[in-house]
């Protein structure tokens, strides 16, 4: 009974999990090195950055918006925090992380503010800020990298607890925290309500601006966190970081079942979406298939995912209509 309740309404997540297991099984047969603790940990570690950011992107998509400026945001924060860490010789890790989260939140809040106040489609606003941010970053840094990070900061993301790297643990904590915010706090419910129906939410006194600000700010903050982890893990920051991230995030989120029109979220699905794309990439590499098949596979999976969710929603509408008739 309890188990059934747990899985109720989670068809999509179940299907995704099944696909992941199936794919894992296929790759394990092809290459024995896939299903090893080392490789699984590597997949998780390699996707922690995307995983953390995709939960934030999910929040923004839930409000019915989108943020395509996450790539440059990510790059700006890796550059700034890496420079700071280098100046401090990697001491003050806590301050560095906080700095990253704060800068990210500010960038996100700016996007949210413009979208909410000017009432312009988010994709256009963030396209503008994306150009401004990336251009400014290149102009200021002149394309130079920050490298040679040392000290505690360089060890921060890679420290392991029970075999799991710290970035992976932080990823899981972010998932739990997001679950708590979205389903057990007022602002989370507000975000879902605004995404579901802006006008209805406005009528019952939910502030659209506040929901937008929180969602964009949250994405920014998570981008900051992910950027710090990335700088710490790779010990390098470059102004071209994060190009194309927005597409990966949107793909992972949508594969996970978050509805593009807003109002429906799936944290577990987003996690599984990231995992699925990660496993495909990893499996292709391990199976020695040329890397350029990756984009083809990603594209196919995305198309199949959105097509299947279109069929699913058609079915659910039919069921609802049938229920009304009774």
């Amino acid at each position, binding site marked *: 009974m309890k188990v059934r309740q747990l899985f109720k309404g989670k068809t999509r997540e179940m299907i995704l999990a099944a696909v992941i297991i199936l794919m894992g099984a296929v790759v394990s047969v092809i290459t024995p090195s896939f299903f090893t603790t080392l490789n699984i940990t590597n997949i998780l570690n390699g996707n922690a950055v995307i995983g953390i950011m995709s939960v934030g992107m999910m929040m923004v998509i839930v409000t019915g918006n989108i943020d395509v400026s996450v790539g440059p945001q990510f790059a700006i924060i890796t550059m700034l925090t890496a420079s700071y860490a280098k100046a401090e010789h990697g001491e003050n890790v806590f301050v560095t992380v906080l700095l990253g989260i704060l800068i990210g939140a500010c960038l996100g809040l700016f996007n949210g503010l413009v979208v909410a106040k000017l009432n*312009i489609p988010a994709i256009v606003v963030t396209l*503008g*800020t994306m150009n401004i941010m990336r251009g400014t970053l290149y102009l200021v840094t002149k394309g130079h990298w920050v490298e040679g990070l040392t000290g505690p900061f360089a060890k921060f993301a890679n420290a392991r607890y029970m075999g799991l790297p710290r970035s992976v643990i932080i990823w899981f904590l972010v998932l739990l925290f997001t679950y708590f915010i979205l389903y057990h706090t007022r602002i989370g419910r507000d975000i879902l309500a605004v995404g579901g129906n802006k006008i209805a939410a406005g009528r019952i006194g939910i502030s659209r601006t506040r929901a937008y600000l929180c969602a964009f700010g949250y994405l920014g903050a998570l981008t900051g966190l992910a950027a710090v982890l990335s700088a710490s893990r790779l010990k390098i920051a470059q102004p071209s970081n994060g190009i194309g991230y927005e597409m990966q995030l949107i793909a992972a989120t949508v594969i996970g079942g978050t509805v593009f029109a807003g109002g429906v979220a799936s944290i577990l699905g987003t996690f599984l979406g990231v995992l699925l794309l990660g496993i495909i990439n990893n499996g292709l590499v391990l199976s020695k298939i040329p890397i350029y098949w990756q984009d083809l596979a990603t594209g196919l999976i995305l198309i199949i995912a959105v097509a299947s969710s279109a069929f699913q929603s058609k079915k659910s509408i039919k069921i609802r209509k049938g229920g009304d008739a009774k």
Partner: protein
Amino acid sequence: MRANSKAVFAKSSTIMILLFIALFIFFSVASRHFFAVGNIMNLFAQMVELGLLTLAMAVSMISGGMDLSIGTLCSFCTVLLAIFISQLALPAGIAIVLVLLIALLCGALNGFFVGYLHITPMLVTLGTQSLFLGLGLVVSKGVTVSIPIDQLAIFGRYKIGGVFPFQILLFIAAIIFSVILFNHSRTGRRIYLIGSDAEVARFAGIDIRNNLLFTYVFSSFMAFAAALVIASRISSGRADVASARILQTVCAAVFGGVSTLGGIGTIGGAMLGVAVITIVSNGIDMLQVSQFLQQIITGGMLLIVLAFRHARKNNLGIA
């Protein structure tokens, strides 16, 4: 409301023309290399590739969607052209026809998902964007495929009388064709209506599915045209040659008054957007300032134009 919105966008195209003239004068004064026959011809030639891709983007935006796949589709077409001509040694004419058919098929794939399965266009084309990139990479094995220098020269390298680039004529023909189709024909009006309110369009008895299918096929046709010009100009095909153009096309279309929500804006307006973006890019090159400044200016102008338009929209009281 109809008249109002028409007035707004008539005004916004006047602003774009004024902006273009102002930028033209500014760059002519600021750089002595700018106002020369060679550079002016070059300026117009530079508009062609972005312009053709913006035509593709603008029509999908007018229909209420957004075709993100045109950049990689265009690149995929350049790869196919190169492979057909240089590796399979097909005559250029046959290669062009074959690639055109494949491009239209790709467009029909988008259109099928959008029109027949009712999936959000951005998601469909996000998927096909990746798909076409992958196809291009797989076919070309990830390398640049060159085209013999004597093939396809007319589309991107031939200059009439040694001065006037031929592709400008091609571009003008494409614009006239699109303007007639979208702003002066019944099909165009239907697509505008679908873009502004699909539900109303359905009640009006418009065949939404096939009109959307047509829109995305048209889009792929323009992407193919851009591929011809690019492949000819660089005498080669590469799977990511045009993928970064996609953001510029959205900027150009939005500049020109095309709404991302669909149903609003004109082809001519979008082309003015192309002109402004190209002149900024060309002028900044001539001033020998960092290319990155151009990115900042484009982004900044986008936000400012939108903020202005928002303010005026509120004054006129249309949502």
